[in-house]
């Protein structure tokens, strides 16, 4: 597969995964771009042993997990007011809420639910995360319950 095609096909999906992880448009853009830079570099090494989607999602989710390393550098200069909120005003509150709730989950749960919502097969998710399929199924069920609960608390 050519890089341009991959980029075309996966940009939105990878962006959403990153967005679910950090709930910050700018940061998610950066993370998504970094992911594609890694994909670009690693592509010659990709063998068709596994699904290309699995392969890309692995890179993207690992990159998100590593994000905490960079977080530390910004933590101190963080502004007290969340400027990001203004930018997202136009967005539907439902979307905002969903992404916010997901980003508040434990790190690995964020990845699992994002992949599920992206309609990645559960067997694939198991392969990306490195857990058994039954484990993933249980986790997804619990996370969805948690999200529903939160939505209801907020009047949905």
């Amino acid at each position: 597969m050519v890089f341009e095609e991959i980029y075309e096909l996966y940009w939105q999906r990878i962006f959403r995964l990153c967005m679910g992880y950090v709930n910050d448009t700018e940061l998610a853009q950066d993370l998504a771009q970094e992911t594609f830079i890694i994909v670009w570099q690693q592509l010659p090494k990709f063998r068709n042993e596994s699904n290309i989607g699995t392969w890309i999602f692995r890179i993207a989710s690992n990159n998100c997990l590593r994000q905490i390393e960079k977080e530390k550098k910004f933590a101190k200069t963080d502004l007290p007011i969340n400027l990001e909120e203004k930018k997202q005003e136009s967005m539907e509150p439902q979307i905002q809420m969903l992404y916010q709730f997901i980003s508040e989950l434990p790190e690995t749960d964020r990845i699992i639910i994002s992949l599920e919502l992206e309609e990645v097969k559960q067997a694939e998710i198991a392969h990306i995360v490195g857990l058994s399929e039954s484990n993933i199924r249980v986790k997804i069920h619990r996370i969805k319950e948690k999200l529903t609960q939160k939505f209801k608390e907020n009047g949905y």
Partner: protein
Amino acid sequence: MATNIDFKNIWKQQTSNKPNMEELLGKLKKFRNQNLRRLIFSNIGLITTSLLILFIWYRYQPEMITTKIGIVLVVLGMAIFLFAYNKMFMVFYKIDQTQSNNEYLQSLYVVKSKQKFMQTTILNLYFIMLFLGICFYMYEYTSRMTLGSGILAYAVTLAWIAFNWFYLRPRTIKKQQGKLDELINKFEEINNQLKES
């Protein structure tokens, strides 16, 4: 449980402008250069300092073996320090990014723990070699002084060494370890999320 909220549908509505390829490739170039630059800078540091010291050796022709041992120790100390620094840097960048999250988190954890051990060991080694080297190096020149000024010269040097060893070194280690410990704990915590249930 009634999940009548269509999460998938809400999820999909989030989109973002795709940066064009040129922008992405520009970033790629910058990213590559940055890594390379860092590596080059640290190595230029090593090479120029070593050359300077070797130039002193050549220019002033020390007579005693102690002076030569001193010079070799200092250069070797710096070489080991920079070699280890470069290696650690590379190890971190070589982690396979296409493993599963579970394996990836474990490698991050292992690498960071190794880094923690290396940093302390190498820093101690560096300081010891540098101090020993200086003491050896000084001997030739102090031996030509009067006894009093010779003792004074060593006293001042030893005081400076003590300050470095007992004050600067622990502080540097503490600062480095603090950052690493935080990361190690965080990686461990995330990894534990995958162990439960």
